[in-house]
């Protein structure tokens, strides 16, 4: 029963319905703002229906794009980049949080100050990278690799520069750091596990702290998916990738309703699907926390 409720809420309501109504709302807003006549709304609604029903009539009158090409660009570029960026964001947050809380623990309990100094220096570097605009990071990447940088570097740059990685680290450091003085942590640390300075592996103290923080950290990651997708959209425009960002900008500039509908729909679908994957992780690992969060 829980699983059915989860599927209904996350897949049907927040996945399919959000994507369909989100596309309809954004396209309507666009038509309203350009003062389109009533006939254009009807035409857009028909086009939308042709697109979601998979009709071959969709885009038949347009030259230079097809529904399949837009879906493929979402699946081949935007989706893997979003997953890669999420992976790096999680990795950065886990590494920096374990380094920070370990340094704090070693400094407070054992008088070892070196870790705190190193952690502070890395924190400043993180803040500096976070303050650097994302598009400047992408442009420097362009300087190094031209218009075809490795996808993995784009995913890394999306979170390393511009604040996503810093924000995730700050969230996890604050959450894990809040538990370091608690009684259960002190009792656990007296059992003598390794500290886990560089990564919160199971069986280490930082791993123990992460175990308590994970139910809050996973919903946080789900909430950051739109920001990640936004960052990737910027990358696609900077590098002129045939991805959704480029399609969307072209559609807006050329006032191509069909391309606009398809691009917005696929972009929101990728957004909803990545969020669904993260929520599934929360549901499978911490079902009680999932229930609590809704």
């Amino acid at each position, binding site marked *: 029963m829980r699983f059915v409720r989860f599927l209904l809420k996350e897949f049907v309501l927040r996945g399919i319905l959000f994507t369909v109504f*989100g596309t309809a709302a954004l396209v309507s807003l666009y038509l309203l703002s350009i003062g389109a006549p009533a006939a254009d709304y009807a035409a857009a609604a028909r086009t939308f229906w042709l697109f979601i029903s998979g009709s071959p009539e969709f885009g038949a009158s347009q030259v230079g794009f097809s529904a399949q090409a837009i879906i493929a660009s979402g699946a081949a570029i935007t989706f893997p980049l979003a997953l890669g960026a999420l992976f790096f964001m999680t990795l950065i947050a886990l590494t920096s949080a374990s380094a920070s809380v370990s340094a704090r623990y070693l400094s407070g309990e054992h008088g070892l100050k070196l870790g705190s100094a190193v952690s502070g220096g890395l924190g400043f570097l993180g*803040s500096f990278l976070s303050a650097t605009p994302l*598009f400047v990071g992408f442009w420097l990447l362009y300087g190094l690799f031209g218009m075809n940088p490795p996808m993995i570097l784009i995913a890394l740059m999306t979170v390393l520069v511009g604040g996503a990685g810093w924000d995730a680290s700050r969230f996890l450091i604050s959450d894990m750091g809040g538990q370091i003085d608690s009684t259960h942590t002190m009792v656990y640390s007296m059992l003598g596990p390794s500290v886990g300075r560089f990564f919160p592996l199971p069986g280490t103290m930082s791993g123990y702290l992460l175990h308590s923080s994970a139910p809050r950290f996973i919903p946080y990651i789900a909430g950051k998916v739109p920001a990640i997708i*936004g960052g990737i959209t910027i990358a696609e425009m900077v590098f002129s990738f045939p991805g959704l960002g480029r399609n969307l900008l072209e559609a807006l500039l050329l006032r191509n309703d069909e391309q606009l509908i398809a691009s917005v729909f696929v972009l929101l679908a990728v957004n909803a699907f990545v969020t669904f994957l993260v929520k599934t992780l929360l549901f499978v690992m911490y079902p009680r926390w999932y229930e609590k969060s809704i």
Partner: protein
Amino acid sequence: MKNRSSALRLAAAIVLVSPLLFAWLPGLAGRPLFGLPAPYWAGLVKSFRQVSITLAVTLLITAFISVAISYFSILWWAFGKAFRSLLDVIESIPSILIALFCYAPVSVILAKNPQAASATLSLFVFIFAAVLTTLPEAVRGITLPLADLYHRKYSISFRAYGFTKAGILLILMNSRAMRDALKRSCVTILLKTLVLDCSFGFIIQIGMGSYGTPAHTSPGALIAANRDAIFQAIESGGRSPLMFWLPTALLVMASLSFLIVLSSKKEASI
């Protein structure tokens, strides 16, 4: 020791955010520094003036709406639930997408109206987009600590003295913890607006090329317009790399200033 650290942080934050304030010095636009071309310098000053207007107006509007929504969300549970769903939907859409959609009508009107009217309209539209995208986080940043305070034992004591729920919330809104939460929300609004403004300016400049953003002057657009300067040698007729790095450095400074405020430890006491 704690006070000295706070004072240092405050001083650093003020120094770093100073480019936004210096842009308003009278006559600065007409006196190019670092040997930069006069039109470029005037554009740089203008872009920082415009971004500071955008930041100030967005902050005022978003903070006012956020405080009102947060207050009424705790006062009337149904109101809070309805707004939470609405803000969740807004937050689920990438900010840059919202800004692009809001800008679409402006690009059409730009062609039909004189530049001054278009610039004003563009500013209003952009502020609307910025308010929309910053609102969910700002409301959350105020509502959560307010709800937390209200559900602590203080409100029970207040109720025992005959205070109404609205009165208790007003008192709690004036507490040190809530003022601190409001300060953080304000800085978050500023940071998000700055990032959105510059990313949006950069994208539109790249997307529209030389027809870039005549109505929306942004440091991001200026960086995009001079992005090739870092790859060209001045000797072979290229522009000065400073035309790329100067606005970038000023933006990094402003963002660092906001991050310094956000990084300070939370004050938990009331």
